[in-house]
């Protein structure tokens, strides 16, 4: 019997998810011997045409990381969806929209202008902007269309499973691959990680006060965090209570608050809204002015509470008066 075929692909992402696969270290050898990698642009020299040449559903599983924000990414994931029996959204960006999803606070025009004209490191006196079509003496050149709105993978194609995390923890990747190989899969749509929040096995939980209440919030560089005490109790915005566990609390162990890359548990519909109401519940004041002062210490609330999940939230993006879908 031939080995199951596996594809990896990246969309709007930083490349960290690819690293995570490599981080399987020698375990990757086991994977490689059990499967046939048929597509992995970052590591192996296959072309889009190779994929196009495959039969539908020929690929057993496609792991796709990154958010979707261009016509090219959209075409590629649709292609992979056709060719693969299973699609796994791999990492925060594919899962919930991720860091690139924060672009949804702006619109395409503002982003392109910032990247190509206004950024301090850019010299572009003519204010030339990339356009979909450019005519040169040799003919027409085209670029993919950059979407106005960044999307999570399941907002563009049907997704079977999710591997959360920025990047997904190695042990979860291993378990997921193992389960797929053995055909022991949970219900479609499942997030392949424990369904409970990080506090559950946080080493610091017992230091959390009976009734946590906060008068002040800090950013990590503003205080020297006690390495043993609950970070939230120290006023650091640790999103452990809101975030699915499974990461081995690596950040918390490194004395950094959880930023929420693993996303919500299955019971939560909108991660950022939940994070906001949970954190707001800890504010220890009944005085409007004092509350405003405490809250004002949260720099960049959207970037804090929706850091990895703005596209997948109920709001998707900042309202920009248009119903333009792209």
């Amino acid at each position, binding site marked *: 019997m031939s080995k199951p075929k596996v594809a990896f692909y990246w969309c709007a992402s930083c490349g960290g998810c690819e690293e995570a696969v490599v981080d399987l270290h020698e375990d990757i050898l086991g994977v490689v011997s059990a499967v046939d990698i048929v597509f992995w642009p970052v590591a192996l020299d296959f072309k889009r045409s190779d994929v196009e040449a495959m039969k539908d559903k020929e690929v057993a599983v496609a792991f796709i990381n990154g958010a979707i924000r261009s016509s090219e990414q959209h075409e590629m994931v649709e292609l992979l969806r056709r060719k693969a029996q299973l699609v796994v959204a791999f990492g925060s960006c594919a899962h919930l929209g991720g860091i690139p999803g924060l672009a949804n606070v702006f619109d395409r025009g503002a982003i392109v202008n910032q990247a190509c004209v206004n950024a301090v490191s850019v010299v572009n006196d003519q204010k030339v902007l990339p356009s979909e079509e450019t005519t040169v003496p040799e003919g027409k050149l085209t670029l993919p269309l950059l979407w106005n709105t960044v999307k999570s993978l399941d907002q563009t194609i049907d997704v079977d499973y999710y591997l959360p995390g920025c990047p997904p923890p190695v042990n979860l990747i291993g378990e997921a691959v193992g389960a797929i190989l053995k055909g022991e899969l949970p219900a479609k749509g499942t997030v392949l990680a424990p369904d409970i929040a990080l506090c559950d096995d946080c080493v610091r939980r017992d230091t959390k006060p009976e009734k946590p209440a906060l008068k002040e919030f800090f950013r990590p560089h503003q205080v020297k965090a006690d390495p043993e005490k609950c970070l939230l109790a120290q006023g650091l915005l640790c999103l452990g209570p809101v975030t699915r566990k499974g990461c081995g609390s690596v950040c918390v162990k490194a004395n950094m608050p959880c930023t929420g890359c693993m996303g919500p548990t*299955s*019971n939560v519909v909108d991660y950022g809204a*939940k994070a906001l109401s949970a954190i707001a519940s800890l504010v220890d004041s009944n005085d409007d002015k004092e509350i405003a002062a405490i809250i004002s210490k949260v720099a960049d609330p959207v970037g804090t509470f929706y850091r990895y999940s703005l596209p997948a939230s109920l709001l998707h993006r900042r309202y920009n008066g248009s119903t333009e879908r792209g």
Partner: protein
Amino acid sequence: MSSLDNKHNGSARVGVYICHCGINIAGKVHIQDVVDIAKKLPGVTVAKEYKFMCSDPGQEIIQEDIKKGLIDRVVVASCSPLMHEPTFRGAMAKADGNPFMFQMANIREHVSWVTKDKGLATDKSKALVAAAVARVMFHQPLTKTQVPVNPNVLIVGGGIAGIHAALTMANAGKKVYLVEREPTIGGHMAKFDKTFPTLDCSACILTPKMSAVRAHPNITLWTYSDVVGVDGFVGNFKIKVKLRPRYVIEEECVGCLECIEACIFKHGKFKDEFNVGLAKRKPIYVPFPQATPLVAVIDPETCAYFRAKCKKPCADVCEKKAIDFNQKEEIVEVDVGSIILATGFKTFDASRVARYGYGKYPNVYTSLEVERLVNAAGPTGGEVVLANGKKPKSVAIIHCVGSRDANSNKYCSKVCCMYSLKLAHLVKERTEADVYNFYIDMRTPGKGYEEFYERLLLEGINFIRGRVAEVTDWAMTPDEEEKLVIRAEDTLVGKVRRIPVDMVVLAVGMEAQPDADDVRRMFNISCSHEGWFLERHPKLAPVSTLTDGVFLAGACQGPKDIPDSVAQAGAAAAEALALIDIGHVELEPNTAFVRDEFCSGCRTCMNICPFSAIAIDTEKDTAVVNGALCKGCGTCVAACPSGALQQNLFTDEQIFHEIEGVMNYV
């Protein structure tokens, strides 16, 4: 992505019943269209319409369908759940259905009563029915729990309403805590000389009731006190009362009032609140001779001892050693099962109508001031005199000051016509002056009221129909010199008149207490936009509030006279007694609960439960909600960051499916 999808019982059978409410709904909503749509909704096995779903035959339709096994959950589209949710739940229970497998869609208050457009009304009704069906699919059978009712009662406000309610409850053998913020009970009535329409002496009918309150073994009277905390719920309230120091030990003071005599201030020097500023009092005083309790009060603002030093002759003269300058404010806590609010009203501030000259001309008085002037125990011993001490020869009484006026209050204060007639009679009796009553409409509905008006007409009082434009001292003729001139249009004669008088009485209207909003917040009830406490239903539940166990009596609920205040106080007492008699309250099962398997023990919920109903189970390291303490406010549910906390009747899946039900329709 979420686990909220389609976990409902696949075999759910929903019955949908659309009510016409006579023409209340059917006049605006195409009922049949809604029935047709309902029939097509997933899960719906029966969809019917009926003229009055709440009637017995209406309820029987539901009951029969349950008994026939056609349905196991019910949606009624009709009026507000506030109105008939209990009716339909009750009907289901009688047919052995679970009353919580029920959802109501409000297509009357939220639809037919608020639009003229039949198309829109029908569309919205469809959307609301679709939402209710989508939601009820996720309902679970629930059971109510019972908790006992504490038979003690708290009454706030010791005016005639509070007094009457207190005596009624106490006579029925219940323990009453009566809290009054002034040094004496009595309220406004204690200030009057006579009361309309019978002209019986106010003190003669009130003071016996005041002393009965003081003497009653079942009544604990706390004057000079405020309620500062209310916790709990119907049947089981926890109340905190702050007793302000009066610097006189209440249990010791025998009311001889020697201390007041002995005070270093030989005469009154400070504003006498009880006499609405018409007299002066000393720093140590009793508001009036029949004050209850008859215990002196020391006002620390004006007492010399608190500002510099004083030899305290008051303390020396007191044989009972009742004066105690070290007295401190005290907080007492009591448990009660029901609460009656009887905090009364305040009179309209006449200076807000500048053209009537109150505060500008010394001989312009408010009605409340004149109540004190005509009072035999008042500052003038019952003489009606001008600022210069002389008797007025002519007096004008202006009705509706601060009432029925778009610039102040639109409502009618209900009592001013009647008390203006009373004052006209009393002023005429005491001074033989010419009395002119300026009224817009004479409002005298009530037993013996119109007859009282007739009597006044015969007594030679002048009645002029017309709103007074102005009170001025600008004389145009020699007759008007040194007088106050009333300019008004006499609408019956059809001409503008100028009437010179010596004294003007402004019949100020009734307004809600200035702190009504704080009080209603503390007791968790609502106010109308004018500030009157809101009754549960204007006709059918006039002394109940939307908070179970909190009742209203007297003018705090709206302008009313003494007979109505007393009647209402009796009704409030009866409601409270009924509650006590049943002995228990049934608690809605809308409590929160923790799903252990999802609880990370993060303790976010611990901080915010206003009823301290949540604890951490140290073995499992998960939160647990104490169902008996949980009031179903849902605060923790919103806060729980992992969705482990859910609330019966408001689970995420119920709410999200309800929203989806609407959205699928718009």
